[in-house]
């Protein structure tokens, strides 16, 4: 069957009433949580994962699709109305968007972000639908050595290529890889690094790790930092509608943003923040009114927001077709798939075709819902932004511990007569780790990606070496693998060269922090 046929079938499944309700709940929750300051898309997805635990796989993944897109939308609202540093994917939106809001043009800024996200989401989701089958065909010819090379490339791009220090990026990655070793080795049944603790035999849950690093770590950092500015929320005054001139200046920016964002997301080349940053520079050079940049140019909101969303859809290409997460958000989504016993990769498209296409179709549905929901409900989202910090972070920690308990709440450890939850102890320990990583300028995403991708890379490496009976030459014997290693080497060496030439500041701006 051709792509249109499969997509149509997916749409029929996605448009069933109960699936529409799941999608609606997903986008609403996703936007509501994504709007909260300090919560990026990765944490949104991790916090809301428990809500989907008791649903059937299809319903859960559809709700998940809504949460993912909703979280991306929510983040842009925050950065326009509240100039929060730290939400990296939307940080570029804040440059111009916050300026527009200050000049009383918050409405049009939100409108161009919402419509741009819609346009980008629509084109990029269709792109996903058409690119994915081709990648699947290609991926079916991949051997274990090629997969291993692909994962090495993903390790490099997520840790060393962007951000302000390759050393700290790689250190974060290796911490994740080291934690990924813990537990029973799947191929031989041997226990590694469990130190006799029963709860460690299954390894460390990616969701526990993500919630700890993003929620607890962020809360500790925000609470401890005296210099944290108390950012003020800017009221939306006047009309939310865009003028004819706004439309004229926005539409090309949306399209450029989409075509910058989708490929960057689809290739393991960095997250949404890289895409929005590149789009911002592109808009700055294309604009007819350069003097407005820095003072609230609408193109500077339209382009990066479109790029941001297009790259979010693009990230799903390697995730669904290769099982390769390239951002922290994707790593958590992979964990969500695994909880239903689904392993994303080329085989998912043949074994669970109806599920995959229902998921892709519900991304389209979620995208429409967000456009309809977002502008009318803007008043509600603004109210969420004004929640005072003490209550906001108290609530975040309540839900962070709730999610961890809901996933694995066994009171499996004892301190004297008191039974305690081992999973919450891990949450606390990794929360402190998250704080320390932030304090010393280490990126967070590589830890999460290393934790989930490390064991997968090991499996492919050992499969390859088992086939060759230990001959290391197999790792570089296929043209695909060699090409991937060359790209990985460039991704490692080029930034080093740029940093030596004193261009490190620009790479620092591209830090893949949040997702």
């Amino acid at each position: 069957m051709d792509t249109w046929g499969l997509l149509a079938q997916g749409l029929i499944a996605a448009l069933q009433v109960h699936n529409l309700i799941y999608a609606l709940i997903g986008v609403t929750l996703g936007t509501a949580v994504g709007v909260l300051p300090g919560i990026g898309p990765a944490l949104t997805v991790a916090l809301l994962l428990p809500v989907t635990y008791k649903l059937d796989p299809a319903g859960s993944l559809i709700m998940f699709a809504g949460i993912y897109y909703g979280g991306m939308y929510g983040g842009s609202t925050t950065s326009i109305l509240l100039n929060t540093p730290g939400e990296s994917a939307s940080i570029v939106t804040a440059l111009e968007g916050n300026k527009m809001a200050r000049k009383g043009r918050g409405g049009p800024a939100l409108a161009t972000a919402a419509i741009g996200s819609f346009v980008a989401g629509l084109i990029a989701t269709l792109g996903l639908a058409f690119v994915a089958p081709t990648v699947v065909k290609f991926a079916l010819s991949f051997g274990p050595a090629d997969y291993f090379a692909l994962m090495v490339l993903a390790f490099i791009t997520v840790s060393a290529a962007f951000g302000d220090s390759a050393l700290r990026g790689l250190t974060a990655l290796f911490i994740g890889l080291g934690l990924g070793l813990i537990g029973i080795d799947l191929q031989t049944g041997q226990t590694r690094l469990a130190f006799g603790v029963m709860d460690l035999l299954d390894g460390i849950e990616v969701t526990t790790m993500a919630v700890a690093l993003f929620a607890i770590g962020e809360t500790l950092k925000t609470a401890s930092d005296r210099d944290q500015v108390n950012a003020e929320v800017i009221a939306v005054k006047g009309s939310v509608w865009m003028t004819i001139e706004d439309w004229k200046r926005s539409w090309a920016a949306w399209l450029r943003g989409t075509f910058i964002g989708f490929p960057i997301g689809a290739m393991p080349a960095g997250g949404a923040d890289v895409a929005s940053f590149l789009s911002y520079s592109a808009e700055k050079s294309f604009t007819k009114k350069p003097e407005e940049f820095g003072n609230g140019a609408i193109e500077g909101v339209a382009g990066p927001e479109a790029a941001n969303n297009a790259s979010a859809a693009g990230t799903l290409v390697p995730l669904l077709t290769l099982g390769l997460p390239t951002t922290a958000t994707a790593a958590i989504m992979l964990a969500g798939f695994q909880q239903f016993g689904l392993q994303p990769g080329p085989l998912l498209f043949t074994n669970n075709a109806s599920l995959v296409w229902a998921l892709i179709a519900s991304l389209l549905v979620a995208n429409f819902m967000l456009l309809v929901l977002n502008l009318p409900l803007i008043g509600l989202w603004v109210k969420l932004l004004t929640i005072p910090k003490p209550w906001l972070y108290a609530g975040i920690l309540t839900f962070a511990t709730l999610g961890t308990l809901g996933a694995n709440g066994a009171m499996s450890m004892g301190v004297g007569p008191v039974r305690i939850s081992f999973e919450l102890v891990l949450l606390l320990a990794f929360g402190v780790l998250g704080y320390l990583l932030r304090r010393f300028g280490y990126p967070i995403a590589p830890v999460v990606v290393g934790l989930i991708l490390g064991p997968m890379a090991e499996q492919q490496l050992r499969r390859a070496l088992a086939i060759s009976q230990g001959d290391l030459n197999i790792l570089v014997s296929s043209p695909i693998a060699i090409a991937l290693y060359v790209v990985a080497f460039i991704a490692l060496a080029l930034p080093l060269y740029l940093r030596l030439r004193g261009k490190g500041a620009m790479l620092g701006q591209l830090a893949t922090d949040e997702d």
Partner: protein
Amino acid sequence: MTPGSSSRERRPDGAALVIAVILAGLAAIIFWQTSQMRVPPIQARVGPTVFPYVIATGLALLAVGTAISALRNGFPARSKDDYGPIAWIIGGLVAQILLLSTAGFSIATGVLFAFTAKAFGRGPLWQTIPIGVVFCFVVWFLFAKGLQLSLPAGPLERLLTTGSF
């Protein structure tokens, strides 16, 4: 991460050196634990020890790199952090962990809620703990009863849902 908040001194970054030591320690633990594994000869070549050794080697090299970076002041400047709020939050999490199995979700998490609010300057605790307990009970009810998530119930939850302890 605010530039200029600490003066650029030309002496080694002590905290970063500690990080280097911790990384080296992690590498040593992985080396030691992996060497303790008894591997059947058939698996010796591509068995479960290969990857741990690779990662431990990587961590050891990164420890050296971190030490060099610490000596050259390669780390970004750090803002002066306030440890009081951190103690409140960690205290709240520890209290929740200890209370959970006996007092139930609402009371334990209510304490965490109040301690976190305290860390951000909202008090006093005799007001915020009841607020937290009520909020957490509502959350418990929605998730445990509505979404069938298994969350520990204590006397409060039993009293309010079944009428008896």
